[in-house]
């Protein structure tokens, strides 16, 4: 009995071992099987597995996409996101004077835009730039009743680095946004859209024409700004405010400040703003400083401006103004009216209105009228205060945007020079390529 039991177990083990060595029939790949012949339960199981796999892959893709950014591959140290952009803009001109004509290069500049979001509240924005220019002189500034166009020769002093924006920003609400560093001022719709690729007409209006200068109001300061937006009327309208305090590179010890308060009619695309500011205009250092009759002949008008970028006579100023920005469908208008009371000398005033019509998605025709009365200042020899007079300009522009990154502009300028009946006509050809 015992022997038979042992034999039986041994037989079973041998049989099992033999069966284990026999190869199982090959499992057919589901992809090559006819679904009609497959078990529906197996199909459902496989479908479920595939769905889960796709889910996993999509999760992974989303995580990767979050980390590398949506437009290009980039790795940041601690920032949640980093945006890098920039532009190259060039301006060439043909100027027609009374006795001679000139054609040449005015300015070329490159600026990089670096924006990093550090966390939900902190971010930074900086735009290191480099320029070369041959600032076109419209007329001889020392003898405003005569003269002809010319160009400043290009040399090391007329090419350099500049930093028009470099600030840290803190914001936890749209009601308050704080910025510190090199910041833009809020005055004037054209100045607010500071960077050249946004412009339909390459040269700014007369009172902001000289790059980064404070000809009537400051366009940038080194200091702090506070700004915010309050939504009204069920989200239809809003009030925007901006205030700033800081110094300028030409007067680093003279504090200046200002504010803008705007009402935005969102349905109409219209904003109307009141502006105020005050500060000190630091006089141009005469050369040589020890000279008994200091001369200011180095303080000349450049960049197709009829007025020098700085004043010779130091004075306090206080300005106010209104600006209007209206965008409705294919029409756009930007208008500014400003008045600056200058201590002890004649006041400055400026009016500009620019109209744009996007008659095709890629084509814009523009017209702008500028008036700028620069008040009064010491004459080039520093012997007497003289009126600088006013200039007016009509500009007709055509801008072609073959892609959202490229703008080509052709602008016709007719400029009446100050303190004279002289006019200068010039044609500017410019382009901006940005990314």
């Amino acid at each position, binding site marked *: 009995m015992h022997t038979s039991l042992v034999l039986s177990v041994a037989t079973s083990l041998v049989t099992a071992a033999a069966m284990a060595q026999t190869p199982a029939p090959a499992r057919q790949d589901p992809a090559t099987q006819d679904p009609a012949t497959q078990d529906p339960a197996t199909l459902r199981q496989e479908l479920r597995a595939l769905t889960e796999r796709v889910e996993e892959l999509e999760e992974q893709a*989303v995580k990767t996409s979050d980390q590398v950014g949506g437009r290009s591959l980039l790795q940041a140290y601690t920032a949640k996101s980093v945006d890098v952009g920039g532009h190259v803009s060039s301006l060439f001109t043909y100027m027609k004077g009374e006795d001679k004509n000139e054609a040449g290069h005015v300015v070329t500049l490159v600026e990089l835009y670096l924006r990093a979001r550090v966390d939900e509240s902190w971010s930074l924005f900086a735009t290191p730039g480099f320029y070369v220019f041959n600032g076109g002189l419209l007329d001889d500034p020392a003898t405003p009743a005569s003269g002809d166009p010319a160009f400043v020769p290009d040399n090391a002093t007329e090419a350099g680095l500049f930093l028009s*924006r470099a600030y840290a920003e803190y914001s936890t609400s749209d009601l308050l946004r704080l910025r510190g560093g090199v910041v833009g001022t809020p005055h004037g719709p054209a100045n607010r859209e500071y960077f050249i690729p*946004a412009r339909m007409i390459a040269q700014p209006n007369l009172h902001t024409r000289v790059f980064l200068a404070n000809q009537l109001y400051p366009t940038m300061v080194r200091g702090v700004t506070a700004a915010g937006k309050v*939504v009204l009327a069920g989200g239809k309208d809003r009030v925007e405010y901006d205030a700033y305090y800081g110094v300028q590179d030409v007067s680093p010890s003279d504090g200046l400040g200002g504010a803008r308060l705007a009402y935005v009619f*969102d349905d109409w695309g219209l904003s109307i703003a009141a502006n105020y500011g005050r500060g000190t205009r630091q006089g141009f250092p005469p050369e040589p400083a020890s000279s008994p009759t200091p001369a200011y002949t180095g303080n000349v008008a450049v960049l197709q401006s009829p007025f020098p970028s700085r004043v010779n006579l130091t004075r306090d100023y206080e300005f106010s103004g209104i600006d209007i920005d209206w965008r409705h*469908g294919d029409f756009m208008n930007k208008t500014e009216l400003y008045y600056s009371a200058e201590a002890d000398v004649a006041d400055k005033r400026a009016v500009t209105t620019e109209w744009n019509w996007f008659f095709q998605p890629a084509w814009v025709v523009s017209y702008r009228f500028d008036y700028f009365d620069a008040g009064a200042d010491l004459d080039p020899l520093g012997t007497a205060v003289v009126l600088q007079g006013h200039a007016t300009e009509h500009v007709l522009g055509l801008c072609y945007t073959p892609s959202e990154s490229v703008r080509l502009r052709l602008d016709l300028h007719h400029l009446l020079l100050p303190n004279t009946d002289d006019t200068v006509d010039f044609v500017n050809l410019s382009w901006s390529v*940005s990314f």
Partner: protein
Amino acid sequence: MNHLSTFVLLAVGAFAAQDPAVPEPKQVTYAVIVNDNNSTKEEGDAAKKLVKSLFLKDLTRWPDGSLAKPYDREPNSPEHVAFLREVLAMSEAEVARHWLRAKNMNGTTPPREVDTDSMLQKHIARHDGAFGIVKLDAAKAPGVRILFEFRAPQ
């Protein structure tokens, strides 16, 4: 008389057949979806205005203070076209001009584009302030909810 009336009826019928009514374009319902944690209560036009301001980055935060993170769809997708027309009420060229201006004021970039419904909803489920546009019947993913619906021609 009987033949005459039959003839008149046939003639009227033939005339009517030659002047077919212009078919109404088929309407599709879309949804603006937000993260489930988004506590925004705005409805109707107020919700549209808010989403428009946040999408264009004129405003940056939801009423509860969370940082808005808008997502766009591919430029030629029906969702993008419908959103431009019905919510932004802007043309493609106007939107392009807006982003060029925003970039050149303070470096603001346009919303990131996401090409599939499921990817978009995963992005939105991951970020509290995120929102985007899908067709209504695609708005089913966990972690997202519908803020409002709108209809547009297909």
